[in-house]
């Protein structure tokens, strides 16, 4: 009985089943596990990208998001870097 009530509740609430959540989490964690990219390398890529971008743009380091994501069999490096402002040319900003 409780199973049916649960299912109906879920149907109305558009709630994702816990199994779907488990499957999504597993897929993501396996992308990390299967790619042999170590956290150190990710950190290094991150630092180097910050260096390059900081030459031209003022970025919000705290708001950065850096992650490996995947759909089916492909992996993508997803980077989100919030920009605070443009640096003026020829004039070094003292931030």
């Amino acid at each position, binding site marked *: 009985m409780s*199973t049916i009530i*649960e299912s109906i509740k*879920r149907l109305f609430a558009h709630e994702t*089943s*816990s*199994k779907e959540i488990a499957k999504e989490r597993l897929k993501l964690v396996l992308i990390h596990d299967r790619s042999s990219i170590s956290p150190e390398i990710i950190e290094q890529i991150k630092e180097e990208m910050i260096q390059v971008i900081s030459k031209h743009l003022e970025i919000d380091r705290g708001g950065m998001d850096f992650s490996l994501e995947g759909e089916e069999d492909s992996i993508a490096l997803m980077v989100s870097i919030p920009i605070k402002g443009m640096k003026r040319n020829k004039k070094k900003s003292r931030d």
Partner: protein
Amino acid sequence: MGKTIVITSGKGGVGKTTAVANIGSALASMDQKVVLVDADIGLRNLDVVLGLENRIVYDIVDVVEGRAKLRQALIKDKRFPNLCLLPAAQTRDKEAVSPEDMIRLCRDLREEFDFIIIDSPAGIERGFKNAVTPADLAIIVTTPEVSAVRDADRIVGLLEAMEKEESKLIVNRVRTKLVSRGDMLSVEDVLDILSIDLIGVIPEDEHIIISTNRGEPLINNNSAPAGRSFLDIARRILGEDVPINMYTEDENLFTRLKRLIGWR
């Protein structure tokens, strides 16, 4: 010449030892000569699951280090005349045996037995390498849980790296009710993620706890869904084409009535 099978998982507590005991006794009941090798040195348990703990004289380390002959260390199971156990050592660690020792040992066992089934320790260190190295077939046990599936995936990767060609999957402790209401990964979900061949599905079954308490294999009990599933796995190992069946407790009039009125 016998076939060497390793039963492994990565994560502990998913049912490796239970699988070894039940698949082993199932094969023995089908007139195969079977030896079960406990490779979990330092944490042996296959002896207690089989109920043979009081009969150990020599163990695998005694054999490897030459203190005992293989024949002296093998324990015959009186319930299944075709079944033997080579116990692990309890007071040593995994370093006491090397993968080369295991290859040599299994080469000798192959002469006498149709199946050598190795119970692998949890983890991916020396004990795992010892257990996997001599195997022709690896059976990976997982449960439909995030942590167990993740570890199984790691094992699949390691087996590939070791160029072990044949690996199969057992999904253990499946709870049909939870799966049908979307609160447990289904066998299809697990296969979708791990993409290896399935050799069997075992439902969650309290008979397992009872049989382990008693130190008796489950396959003698015809009403136990897990026991029937293990028998099916043994038939598949022997090359029979047995469809995957999700056994449930046999329903009699009384249990059906209880279910109808919602009292369980």
